[in-house]
């Protein structure tokens, strides 16, 4: 268990800035997710923590000790971390047991201790029967379990996971997600988990850091993140909210040439409305573009000027595509800053 602290970290590739002044503190034993769209710099951030990339500016501390910063650069092999890669990265020329034993071999432990700890680690991921198999005889889910056992066997200070589940099919993903959660409960290792899947992040984490364009937009517990998104981007990325920019006059909000009555008062240039908070049947008439049956509910898409407004409601409305339906908002979040994606 250890803390990880990034302070005003910058990173650019060539002339493209990728991480722009990122600050973050991961507490000891915490499970923190880095969540964000593709290309926002999640992997880069994780690799900087790992030591696989140098930081350009700023300071990185692990367990309170500076490991990367001006005049300091501790190579990855000395940081005492574990990492699980998206592509598994299980060595094809070594058996399962040899893969898992490798970090211990490098520590120069005795053969008996290594064997015992490899057995223990394989037990965590339920792979003991596969110890002597070559990786070519394992499935994707099993390979990723080998990678997890290998990353944890030396009891790292921090476990880094870069989209470990994204190469797996949906059912396996669920299963392995549960296993990561229970491993984390047993071992109590600090974990940093990179993903672009909000469900994964919300389900697993103590806190989620939502990244966009190389900065953290909000860092909060899953519930807080969902209930009180700090920026329009977080509202739309985590809750799937409609983000609308316009002007407020009293309780009337004008956007894309349409006027809506907002619940409550307050200044705003941008509002975020979750699809489930779009009420049908009263308010401003909008043309229905599409009606998508989701099973328990129906998603409606309305034309609002040149953008699309999404609503989710019970599967009873008989509105037909092309009709005008009255639309209002039961709950909105107001933001003073304009939206940017």
């Amino acid at each position, binding site marked *: 268990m250890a803390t990880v602290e990034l302070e005003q970290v910058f990173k650019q590739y060539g002339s493209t800035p990728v991480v722009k002044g990122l600050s973050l503190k991961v507490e000891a034993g915490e499970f923190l997710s880095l969540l964000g769209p593709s290309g926002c710099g999640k992997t880069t951030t994780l690799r900087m923590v790992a*030591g*696989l990339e140098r930081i350009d500016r700023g300071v990185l501390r692990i367990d309170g000790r500076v490991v990367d910063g001006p005049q300091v650069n501790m*190579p*990855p*092999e000395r940081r005492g971390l574990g*990492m699980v890669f998206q592509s598994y990265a299980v*060595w*094809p020329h070594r058996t399962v047991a040899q893969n898992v034993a*490798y970090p211990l071999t490098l520590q120069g432990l005795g053969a008996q201790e290594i064997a015992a700890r490899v057995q223990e680690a394989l037990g965590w991921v339920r792979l003991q029967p596969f110890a002597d198999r070559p990786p*070519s005889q394992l499935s994707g889910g099993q390979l990723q379990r080998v990678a997890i056992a290998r990353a944890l066997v030396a009891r790292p200070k921090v476990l880094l996971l870069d989209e470990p589940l994204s190469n797996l099919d949906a059912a396996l993903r669920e299963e392995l997600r549960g296993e990561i959660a229970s491993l984390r409960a047993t071992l109590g290792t600090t974990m940093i988990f990179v993903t672009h899947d909000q469900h994964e992040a919300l389900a697993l984490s103590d806190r989620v850091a939502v990244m966009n364009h190389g900065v953290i937009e909000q860092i909060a517990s899953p519930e807080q993140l969902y209930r009180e998104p700090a920026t329009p981007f977080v509202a739309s990325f985590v809750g799937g909210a409609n983000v609308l920019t316009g002007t407020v006059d009293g309780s009337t909000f004008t956007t894309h040439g349409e006027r809506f009555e907002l619940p409550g008062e307050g200044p705003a240039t941008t509002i975020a409305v979750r699809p489930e908070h779009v009420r049908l049947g009263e308010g401003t008439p909008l043309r229905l573009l599409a009606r998508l049956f989701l099973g328990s509910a129906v998603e409606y898409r309305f034309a609002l000027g040149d953008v699309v407004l999404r609503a989710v409601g019970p599967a009873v409305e008989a509105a037909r595509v092309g009709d005008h339906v009255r639309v209002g908002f039961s709950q909105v979040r107001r933001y003073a800053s304009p939206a940017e994606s």
Partner: protein
Amino acid sequence: MKRSLALALAVGAVAFGPLGVLLSRGLGVDWLATWTSPPTLLALRGTVVTSLGAAMLALTVGLPLAVLIGRTDLPLRRTLQAAFTLPSALPPFILGMGWVGLANPKAGLLNLLFGVGTFDIYGAGGIAFVLGCAAIPLVFLPALASLARVDGALEEAARMSGATPLRALLGVSVPLALPAALSGAALAFLFAASAFGVPYLLGVTATPPTPTLTTRIYSEVLVGSEGLARASVLSVELLALAALLLVGSRALARGVLLSQGKGGARRPVPLGAARWPLALASLSVMFVLVVLPLLAVALTSVQPVWGQFSGLTVKHWSSVLSNARTLDAATRSLVLSLGAASLVTVLGLGLASRRRGWLDTLAGAPYAVPGTVLALALLTSFARDVRFIAFDRVAFVLALGNTAWLLLLAYVVKHLAFGVRNASDGFAQVDPSLTEAARLSGASPARAFLDATLPQLRAPLGAAFVVTFLTCMTELTLSVLLIPTGRDVLGTLLFDLQSYADPGSAAVIACAFIVLVLLAQFVRRPKEA
């Protein structure tokens, strides 16, 4: 199915028919006695010793070089890679000529510098050395390709497990590239065992002479009809050795583990303080093994008398270039090489378009047959006219013996592998939906092939043509055995001039080969990028 069978029979007949005829020539001979006779054993020993030495040299230079160039921040990697790829495009005979100029015990340049008798390129050691240098690309290139396919995360996972960069390289990437390198070393052995020019140049006149199977076969052929039978028996031995090596190489290559992931996107391992010393060492190796012998050839071409360095002259150049024999040989080489390259490309396309793996393998098989054996097989098969009689009336007479047609046939049979391999790699890359789209737009199958499929094959077919053309232009082994009496191609001219006391003129032709090959490299470079 019937057509496939007929095609298989035809290809099989061309690939293996002559070998069968060759075998039958040895039927009357006491095989065991021939194989266990002291001269044969000596030749076998020569082949094994020189080939083993060559394979080991190729491996010890090729693998570390591939690791340095493929996985580290060594300076001048591109230069080194280009230089160490070069020997694969040149006939090894030229490197041999260069080394004769450098390390002839009496008059070699190095011996004039370091004292007479310091180096002696003649004999088993010299043959192994020269063939080893020529075989470096056979190990280097597959190892490099194999390293490039290793997923970068595999090494990073080792770093995260606590390994230093060097340890991660040696513990992960090198073992993953090793099967490819070993498989290449087996090919290097096969290459050296099949070589004829270098063992002839450096073995026959060595004291004591170092015969190999190929040079023994050649000298038996020169004896005449009785020798031909013995040569046939020796060929079987060489052929068995070749088959063994090929199987070994294939088995080793099967160990090439394709790692998941896309490879690439990896940070080269920083060499730190060792960066420039290692670069200097690599450059020195490159200079000695590749550049120096070629410079020596160039130097030989301007020496007034061989081994004399004052009063350099262009007399060899002017005499060779103005000689009618040179012109005649160059024309014949050009015509034969263009013909062979066209046939190889077209036949390769035709065979590969059947999309049958075994057919490709069959058509590619003669490439693995040592040139001496293949030439001998064709020689015996067409020594007499072959008659086909159809319907009891029409007779076709195939009289190829002692004509340039036989040489053309040999070039095509030997290098058909280039055409088939390139075309079938090309077909594997072709996007079938483009052809299907053409069909749905109303094109007939033939039209769709021409308009949609063929354009996608242009690059691999072009490469097959160029490689075949260059190889035939500089070909030596087949040419020496199959050239009609009194005629020449460039390869036989080079061989004759070098063997019979005019190394200056031979060097001129060698220089022409070097220039041709370098030009081709530069022309092809931009296309690959």
